C-alpha cells in the first residue's frame, strides 16, 4: 500500500465515523480518568445502552487535560458538535444520556462546553472557557479527540504526513528544518534539537541509535504519560523522522514501568505501524530501515539522565558517567546515540507536517513553540495544559488554573520538579521560557508545575524534595551522595524544631558544593529547591530556627492542637474519631487533648463541625485550656448531635 492509499483509507474510515448516524460517546480513559472512576462510568454507560437498546458507539480516548473535571465524557449526536460533560458519576450518567440521546436535552447544567462546528444552545464553546482560551494545543492536538488505539484516526488527522514528507527530503534538509523551527529539548535543559541531531549525524560510524526518553520521573509531572496514552503515534512518527535524519536504524523507548497503559498503547501502536509499513524494513518503500524496541524502566529516577539511561538500557546499574564523550559521539554500546524526550519527538512530527515557519510563530525569540505542563497542587483546576512559551506564570495559575484552591493565598510555584526551584509571588509576572526560569534560579524542567498556597511550608517542601533526591541519588559521586544526605539531615532538624544558628550558612555552603561538584545533572540541580527557598523564603527558615515556629502550621513537631473551651460543645465527634484516643471528655464536657498522646494528624480539626470550630492549630504559641474535661459553660445554638 502506498502512503496515499493508506491516507485515503484512513480518511474514509474517519469520515464514516464522523458521518455515522449512530451517536458516539467518548470516554476519557487515561490513567487519571480511570483513577477518578472512568471505569465505573464506562460500565454504567454500557449498562444504560444495553438496557435502553440505544445504538451508540463508545470510544475510549486519551486525556483532554482537564483533570479537575474527571471523569469526563463527550457525546456526539449525528450532525452536532461534541458536548463535553465533566465530573460524570456512574449513578447519573444514565439519566444524562437518556436526556440528551432520547429526549434531545443536552443538559447545559452538566455540560462544560462543546467542541466542533455548529452550536448547542446554552453551552459555550469548550475552547472559549478560561481554562482553555490561553492554551495552544499543538502537541496535545489529538489528545482526547481521537481513539489512541486506532492508527487511522491519527492518519486521518494529518498523522504520518510529516514522515512521508521527510522521506522525500535529504537528512541534512530535515535537520535544517528542525534548526529553523527553533525547537529546544523538552526534557528540561533546552538544548537546540537540530544541533543535537547534527552532532550525531556527523559522528563517525554507521551504526547509530536514537532513544526516546519516556522515563518521566519528576514527582508531580505526567505530561509524557498523557501524551503517550492519548496520542502515541505522534511520538513514534517523530522518532522515525529523527532516525532517518540522523541515520539510525535502531531506536529504543525507555519508559517507566509505572505507566502500564502508556506501554500498552505504545506496543499496540508499533504493531499497527508495522502493518502499514511505517516501521521496519524499507519504510514506505524508501529503502530506509528502522526498528524500535521498548525498554521498561525498573524504578530509578536517575535513569532520566541520559548517560544513566543508556547504562540502564545496556543492562547495568543506572549510574551516570562524565561527559565528554557525549552520547552523540559515544552512546549506547559506544555508538553515536541521540536521545530526546517524548514531547520533543512529538514536536518533530508536527514541524515536519506543518513546516518550521508555521511552528516558529509560537513562543518567544529564543524559546519557540509550546510547552506542556502538569499543573497540580493547590489550584482550582488541576490538569495537563499546553501553552505558548513566553506566557506568564500568573496567566497559567490564575486564568488556566482558576486561582488557588478554596480562595487561599498563593505562596509559591515549583517548576522543574526536584531539580527546579520555588518561585514566589513577586515573580508571577515573569514569562515562562528557558532563560527567565533559569535566571530566577529554577529550570523549565520537563514540565511539572506545582502550586503551593499559604498552608504549604516551604522548609517542609524543600525537605520533601531532598528526601526524594537523596533516595534517588545513584551514590557514585560524594557531592550528591553525601551532600544531599547532609542537607536533608539539616532540614530535618529544622522542621523538627532543632535548628540552630549557622544552619542556613552550612546549607548554602553544601548546596553550592553539590551544585558545582556533582557528576551529573541530578546532583548539579538537586540543591535548587534549597537555594531558591533560601533566596525567596528565608524568613520561613528563620521562623523555624529562631522562633521554633512553622508559619504555615505544617511541621508536626512545631504545631499544637487545642480545643477551645469557650467553643467546644462536648459533642464527642472529635473524641470518637481520634485515631489514638488522645481526646478526653464526655457528653457536654469540654474536650481536652492529651498532648503527650496526640500524633497531630489533624482529624479533630477536620471533623469538628464548622458551626463550633472549636479546634485550633497553632505554632509558637500556647493556649491556656483546662487540664481535664469540665462541663460546657453555656449552650451555643444546638449542641445536640
Amino acid at each position: 500500500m502506498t502512503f496515499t492509499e493508506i491516507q485515503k483509507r484512513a480518511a474514509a474510515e474517519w469520515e464514516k465515523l464522523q458521518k455515522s448516524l449512530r451517536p458516539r460517546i467518548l470516554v476519557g480513559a487515561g490513567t487519571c480518568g480511570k483513577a477518578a472512576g472512568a471505569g465505573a462510568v464506562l460500565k454504567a454507560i454500557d449498562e444504560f445502552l444495553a438496557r435502553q437498546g440505544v445504538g451508540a458507539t463508545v470510544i475510549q480516548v486519551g486525556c483532554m487535560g482537564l483533570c479537575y473535571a474527571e471523569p469526563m465524557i463527550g457525546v456526539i449526536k449525528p450532525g452536532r458538535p461534541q458536548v463535553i460533560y465533566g465530573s460524570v458519576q456512574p449513578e447519573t450518567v444514565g439519566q444524562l444520556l437518556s436526556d440528551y440521546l432520547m429526549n434531545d436535552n443536552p443538559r447545559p447544567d452538566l455540560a462544560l462546553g462543546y467542541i466542533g462546528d455548529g452550536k448547542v444552545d446554552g453551552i459555550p464553546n469548550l475552547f472559549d472557557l478560561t481554562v482553555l482560551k490561553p492554551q495552544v494545543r499543538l502537541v496535545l492536538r489529538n489528545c482526547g479527540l481521537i481513539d489512541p488505539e486506532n492508527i487511522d484516526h491519527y492518519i486521518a488527522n494529518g498523522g504520518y504526513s510529516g514522515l512521508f514528507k521527510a522521506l522525500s527530503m535529504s537528512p541534512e534538509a530535515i535537520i535544517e528544518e528542525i534548526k529553523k523551527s527553533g525547537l529546544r529539548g523538552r526534557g528540561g535543559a533546552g538544548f537546540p534539537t537540530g544541533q543535537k541531531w547534527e552532532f550525531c549525524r556527523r559522528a563517525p560510524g554507521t551504526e547509530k541509535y536514537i532513544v526516546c526518553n519516556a522515563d518521566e520521573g519528576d514527582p508531580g509531572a505526567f505530561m509524557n504519560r498523557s501524551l503517550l496514552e492519548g496520542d502515541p503515534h505522534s511520538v513514534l512518527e517523530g522518532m522515525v523522522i529523527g532516525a532517518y535524519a540522523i541515520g539510525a536504524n535502531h531506536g529504543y523507548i525507555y519508559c517507566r514501568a509505572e505507566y502500564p497503559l502508556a506501554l500498552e498503547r505504545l506496543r499496540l501502536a508499533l504493531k499497527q505501524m508495522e502493518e502499514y509499513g511505517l516501521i521496519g524494513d524499507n519504510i514506505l518503500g524508501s529503502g530506509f530501515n528502522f526498528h524500535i524496541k521498548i525498554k521498561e524502566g525498573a524504578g530509578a529516577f536517575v535513569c532520566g539522565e541520559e548517560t544513566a539511561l543508556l547504562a540502564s538500557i545496556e543492562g547495568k546499574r543506572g549510574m551516570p558517567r562524565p561527559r565528554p564523550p557525549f552520547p552523540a559521539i559515544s552512546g549506547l554500546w559506544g555508538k553515536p546515540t541521540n536521545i530526546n524526550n517524548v514531547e520533543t519527538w512529538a514536536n518533530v512530527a508536527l514541524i515536519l507536517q506543518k513546516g518550521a515557519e508555521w511552528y516558529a510563530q509560537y513562543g518567544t525569540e529564543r524559546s519557540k513553540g509550546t510547552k506542556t505542563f502538569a499543573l497540580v497542587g493547590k489550584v482550582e483546576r488541576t490538569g495537563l495544559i499546553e501553552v505558548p512559551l513566553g506566557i506568564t506564570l500568573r496567566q497559567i495559575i490564575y486564568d488556566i488554573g482558576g486561582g488557588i484552591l478554596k480562595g487561599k493565598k498563593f505562596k509559591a510555584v515549583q517548576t522543574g520538579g526536584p531539580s527546579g526551584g520555588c518561585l514566589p509571588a513577586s515573580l508571577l509576572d515573569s514569562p515562562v521560557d528557558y532563560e527567565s526560569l533559569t535566571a530566577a534560579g529554577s529550570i523549565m524542567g520537563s514540565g511539572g508545575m506545582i502550586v503551593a498556597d499559604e498552608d504549604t511550608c516551604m522548609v517542609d517542601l524543600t525537605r520533601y524534595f531532598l528526601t526524594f533526591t537523596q533516595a534517588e541519588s545513584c551514590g557514585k559521586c560524594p557531592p550528591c551522595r553525601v551532600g544531599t544526605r547532609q542537607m536533608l539531615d539539616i532540614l530535618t532538624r529544622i522542621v523538627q524544631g532543632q535548628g540552630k544558628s549557622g544552619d542556613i550558612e552550612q546549607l548554602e555552603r553544601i548546596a553550592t558544593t553539590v551544585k558545582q561538584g556533582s557528576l551529573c545533572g541530578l546532583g548539579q540541580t538537586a540543591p535548587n529547591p534549597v537555594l531558591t527557598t533560601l533566596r525567596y523564603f528565608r524568613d520561613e527558615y528563620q521562623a523555624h530556627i529562631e522562633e521554633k515556629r512553622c508559619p504555615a502550621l505544617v511541621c508536626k513537631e512545631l504545631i499544637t492542637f487545642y480545643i477551645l473551651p469557650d467553643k467546644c460543645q462536648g459533642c464527642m465527634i472529635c473524641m470518637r474519631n481520634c485515631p489514638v484516643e488522645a481526646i478526653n471528655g464526655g457528653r457536654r464536657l469540654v474536650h481536652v487533648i492529651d498532648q503527650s498522646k496526640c500524633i497531630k494528624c489533624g482529624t479533630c480539626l477536620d471533623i469538628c463541625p464548622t458551626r463550633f470550630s472549636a479546634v485550633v492549630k497553632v505554632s509558637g504559641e500556647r493556649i491556656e485550656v483546662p487540664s481535664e474535661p469540665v462541663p460546657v459553660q453555656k449552650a451555643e445554638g444546638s449542641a445536640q448531635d
Partner: protein
Amino acid sequence: MLNYVTDCFSKEPRLSDELAQIVAEYGGEKGALIPILQKVQERYGYLSEEAVSRIAKLCRMSQSEVFGVASFYAQFYFTRRGRHSIKVCLGTACHVRGGERILDEVKRELGVESGGTTDDNRFSLERVACFGSCALAPVVVIDKDVYGRMTVSRAKEILAQYE
C-alpha cells in the same frame, strides 16, 4: 549427560527449567538482564537467592554483578511479598495535598512500616515517588487499582475490600 547430573542435584528442577526458558527468550540479546529480572520477578513475585545465582550463570555474569544491578532499581524485591501491594504516592502533588497523612493512616491501620509486609501476608506497603496521576492527588494504588482524591477515612474503607 552433564545436564542430567546437575538436575539430579538441584533442589527445584522446575525453577531451573523456567529460568532457562525465560533467559532463552532473549536469545543472548545485548542488555537483556533487566528485562529478564523483570520477567522472573513477575513470575515469582521476588528474586530469590537461587534465582539470582541461576540467572547469573545463564547470563554468564557473576551473581554479585546481577545482584548489584537488581538492587540498584527500586522495582526489585528479594523477599516474598504480600498478596496485595499498596503503593501510597508521595509525589510532590500528593505531598502538598496530604499524602503523608494517608501513609500514616495506612501504616497505623495495618501495623506495618513502608517497605514491609503484614504478618498475615495480606499486604505489602510501599511509598512511591509518583504515579503521574497528580491532578487527582493524593493517590493510592492497590495492586492495579488506582484510587484518586484519597482521604484518611476512605483509605480504611478501601483496605477492607482486599482479602
